[in-house]
């Protein structure tokens, strides 16, 4: 197990494959069916790139995902909390994650995760209407968005504008199929890029195949 160039992410080689790990904040606890590995005093959780787009972006070679210890993160589209649990590992006990989703069904599972990890909270809100939850969150260092909506870039920019601090990182997973199924994903990614370039500096762009088809990840700085 070696520490990778990305903060808090550990790596191990399994034959030809690279496997990612994060240090488990709550030792002994699994979140989904991931592998737990103990090394000395620490316990590590395997980070599955097929279930988490952030892990996929790292494996595709992102040099920097911007997340540091003690960061405050706003996570739009947290679903049941697979990726959130790893982000929560990365920011550590002093950091904090606001997880937001609009579906009561998945948030129900997410709340059980929140009860086990002290640095997460859950919001049942529509990310399209940031003014509805402006009184429930604070300014954040990292904004992560993974929402399958047609107006994903618009939602992203709205939230970046209000909640992200200056100099903070914004991570944006784009699903081209929910913007337009008929168009070539590359064309859509290009459109999204020109749209978010007006407000943010893009430092990295990765397509996520073969882990996720027709998805890409933008890492930007405000």
């Amino acid at each position, binding site marked *: 197990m070696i520490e990778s160039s990305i903060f808090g992410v550990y790596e191990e080689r399994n034959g030809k494959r690279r496997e990612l790990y994060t240090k488990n904040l709550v030792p002994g606890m699994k979140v989904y069916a991931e592998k737990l590995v103990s090394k000395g005093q620490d316990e590590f959780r395997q980070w599955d790139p097929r279930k988490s787009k952030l892990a996929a972006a790292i494996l595709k070679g992102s040099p920097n995902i911007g997340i540091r210890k003690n960061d*405050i993160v706003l996570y739009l589209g947290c679903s049941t909390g697979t990726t959130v649990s790893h982000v929560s590992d990365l920011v550590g006990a002093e950091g904090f994650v*606001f997880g937001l989703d609009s579906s*009561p069904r998945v*948030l129900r599972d997410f709340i059980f995760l929140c009860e086990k990890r002290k640095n997460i*909270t*859950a919001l049942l809100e529509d990310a399209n209407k940031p003014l509805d939850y402006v009184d429930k969150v604070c300014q954040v260092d990292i904004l992560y968005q993974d929402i399958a909506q047609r107006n994903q870039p618009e939602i992203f920019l709205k939230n970046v504008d209000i909640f992200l601090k200056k100099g903070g990182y914004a991570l944006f997973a784009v699903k081209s199929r929910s913007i337009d199924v008929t168009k070539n994903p590359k064309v859509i990614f290009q459109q999204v890029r020109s749209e978010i370039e007006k407000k943010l500096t893009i430092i990295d762009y990765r397509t996520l195949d073969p882990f996720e088809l027709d998805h890409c990840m933008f890492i930007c700085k405000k």
Partner: protein
Amino acid sequence: MANYIFSNIAGNFVIDSGNRIIDKSSDAVALRAKYKAVEHADAKIVLSLFRGKEYLSAFREKNLAISKEKIRLSVNQDNLISQSMNAMQEMEKVSNLLSKRLREWYSLYNPEFSESISSNSKFSELVSAKSREELLKEIGAKNTMGADLGKTDLDAINVLASAIVRINATKESTREYAENIMKSYCPNLLGVAGVSLSARLIEHTGSLKKLAFIPSSTIQLLGAEKALFRHMRTGSRPPRHGFISEHQSICSAPQKERGKLARQLAARISKAVKIDYFRGKHD
């Protein structure tokens, strides 16, 4: 010096023009009275003030409580309908699977009877209720090529048969339950489309509200998404109908008429749903 007021779930705060919190209270009205003529603060600027530990723990506790309450309130008739709908479908599947096994198993003992009756539910009912001799007499067969099984072997078969009978009865009562909900919740849709189709449409879109807001051309193709997107991507032939093909008027129609009928039925369903959602009375 203008002061600003900002309220969030951690409390109400008075912020001065240098962006510092100068006072806080749980009572917004009292704060307003104390600092006369306070304006609302710009969220973009003041949100940075709440990054401290004490605020984060307040955010955590309050947000969890609010979300739990919202989840509690989010349960509605649509959820009940889709759960009962899914339960019905799954019981149907299980019942068919087990019935096939029962037929195989029972045929060791009495193959003639299994051959003569096609309805699964009737088969399991009769097997669990009657003996081989009675059943043979019913179908007019004199003797059987089945093996003679002992009492313990027959008992095991009977247990399975009565389990299937119970599953079928549960399915029926679930169906009645769903129908009763829909009679008051979406009577017009129920009248046009019937229990299982109505439930399926609600289940697929998520709620009656969503169903009421989508056009009838979309209703026509609900459940045929795969074929539709294939059509849009590759230009193959478009689908004519989705779930609504299970409706009596379509599944019994000749191939040529199906597209037209599907369009008409979708239009009728669309109207019925809109009446149900916006008026809520039987029409």
